[in-house]
């Protein structure tokens, strides 16, 4: 198992290296002088030069990269020019709402996807199956920010069941907090639910066709037990992998959904930074979210190895 973990971590190194180079170069893609871009056309040349110095823009590119990377490794992501505070603090301040939103979304998604995916596979070809298939197809065509706006029109503007926008921390006021997070959570969870439903359905179908299910059935195991104890347990592994893969779209979706509902999360921070061309914040947020994504997938990979001995012993690492 240790060998497996080490293998997985080593495989991650080149990926992280490329990610860091891409994120570092974001500042330098900008046409013109980054310092000039930050200060705007009205700033004097002396101000621009001073900022160039403090940002370290006069050093060779490679030196700049390594000093930036060194900073990242020691937890120093630089300082936001506009917010006058360290990027890491800004990210920490905005992390909780995004995490809460993502948690609600994944709860909604799993709550819908697992039962419906399983039943659609069990009663394959039935009306239920067809409804589920059409529903997933439709949900996948609706981007979360569009669904968010539509939900807002129906449930906040017309029915007035939920507030139009805003955020209350559920840890300080649970009822009001949940109320502000339900609409964005559903908006975000729906597309994830569609993706997971499809995987669940395919995985369950796969298991239902296998010999040991026939064997269990011939021994007289009840239908319900067969479906949920025998089948779902074995179909769980591919579903788990898929959950890891959708975490990426979940987090970015959260970023966009937040701006619709004015939730002060990482997404709102990013959008503010984009309009202000606050590069250190953009780099920091993209890095933070990407690392979260890689970490979640690493954990799921390791869980996979823990649950299924075939993965640990086999050659799954070569894919």
């Amino acid at each position: 198992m240790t060998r497996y973990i080490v293998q997985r971590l080593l495989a991650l190194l080149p990926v992280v290296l490329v990610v860091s180079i891409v994120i570092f170069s974001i500042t330098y893609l900008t046409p013109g002088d980054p310092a000039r871009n930050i200060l705007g056309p009205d700033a004097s040349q002396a101000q621009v030069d001073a900022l160039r110095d403090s940002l370290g823009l006069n050093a060779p590119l490679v030196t700049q990269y390594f000093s930036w990377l060194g900073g990242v490794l020691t937890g120093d992501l630089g300082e936001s020019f506009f917010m006058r505070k360290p990027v890491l603090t800004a990210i920490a301040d905005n992390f909780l709402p995004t995490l809460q939103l993502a948690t609600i979304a994944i709860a909604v998604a799993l709550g819908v996807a697992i039962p419906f995916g399983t039943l659609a596979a069990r009663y394959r070809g039935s009306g239920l199956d067809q409804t589920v298939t059409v529903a997933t197809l439709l949900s996948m065509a609706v981007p979360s920010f569009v669904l968010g706006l539509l939900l807002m029109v129906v449930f906040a503007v017309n029915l007035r069941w939920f507030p139009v926008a805003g955020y209350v921390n559920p840890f300080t006021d649970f009822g009001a907090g949940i109320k502000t997070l339900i609409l964005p959570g559903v908006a975000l969870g729906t597309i994830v639910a569609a993706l997971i439903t499809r995987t669940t359905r395919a995985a369950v179908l796969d298991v239902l066709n296998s010999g040991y299910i026939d064997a269990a059935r011939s021994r007289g195991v009840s239908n319900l037990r067969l479906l949920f104890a025998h089948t779902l347990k074995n179909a769980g592994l591919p579903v788990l992998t898929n959950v890891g893969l959708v975490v990426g779209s979940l987090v970015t979706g959260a970023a966009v959904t937040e701006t619709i509902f004015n939730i002060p999360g990482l997404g709102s921070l990013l959008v503010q930074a984009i309009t202000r061309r606050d590069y250190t914040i953009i780099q920091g947020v993209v890095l933070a979210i990407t690392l979260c994504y890689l970490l979640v997938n690493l954990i799921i990979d390791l869980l996979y190895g823990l649950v299924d001995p075939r993965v640990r012993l086999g050659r799954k690492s070569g894919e």
Partner: protein
Amino acid sequence: MSEISRVPSTQTLALLPARDSSYWRRALRSRSLVVGASWILLVGLSALTLPLVLQLDPYSVAPTQRLQGPSLEHLAGTDSYGRDVFARLLSGALTSLRVGLIVCLVTAVAGSIIGVLAAFNSVLDQILMRICDGLMAIPGILLAVSLAAALGPTISNLIIALAIVYTPGLARVVRSRALAVRSDTFVEASRVQGARPVHIMVRHILPNTFSITAVQATFIFAESVITEAALSFLGAGVQQPLASWGNMLNQGKDVIMQAPQIVVFTSLFLVLTVLALNLLGDGLRDTVDSRGVRPQPRRARSSRKRPPRDATARAIEPEGTQL
């Protein structure tokens, strides 16, 4: 020479699955492909012709007619500047379809080149695929947003950003197909005949990746339309006064209490177009997939799993795969 001429032409074998007439017949039989393509054509043609015919101007501002509801004069009402929403929807359609189409073409070309090259040189493979892994590790919209924000919000920069985001995924798919085709008998035969690697790459491997590229590119088209809308919504994409579904949604959001129809109509167009592109992709996949030719029990059709092996591999399977 006479020895070589008796070897069956590898060219014919390579193109075996691509019988044109049956492609078209199968394409027309696929309901999702026809429905999807029709909607895209309908939207594209209306966006090109209707503004001329109905004298619609997406830019003409009328401060006295702000936020009006749908009427005969303004089919989808007006926005907060008094501009005709229907005219802007059509203009936005043109923006979305153009961005999507260019991104999917650029991605298809770049992805094919990278994928096929990677399949042929192991050193290049390591370098290119590590870069692809790194780019794919950054969630798509996030990468696109930061690239577009850094490059500056113009349509061409938007296209560059989206192409960078979607090329790695396509390159991986093309690479795995190219690797599979490379070990097939007809490529082996061509090599034995003394064909140079470049010839094998261009004449044998590349044509066999076309079908999978076409399917993937259609899905990338759909993705680009969504991502373009998201970017424009966030202010990192198409800028006002140019119309895009994304920036229309952003504007509509600000007046959602007074004029929710702007958000509703724009969403409807966006969702239907994405749905149509997804249907087109699904239909295309079924058409390219040679399983569609074989008679199949009706029941299994709607819920069949992905075929275990690809069309090309199967088409040349029958004799002597083991060399």
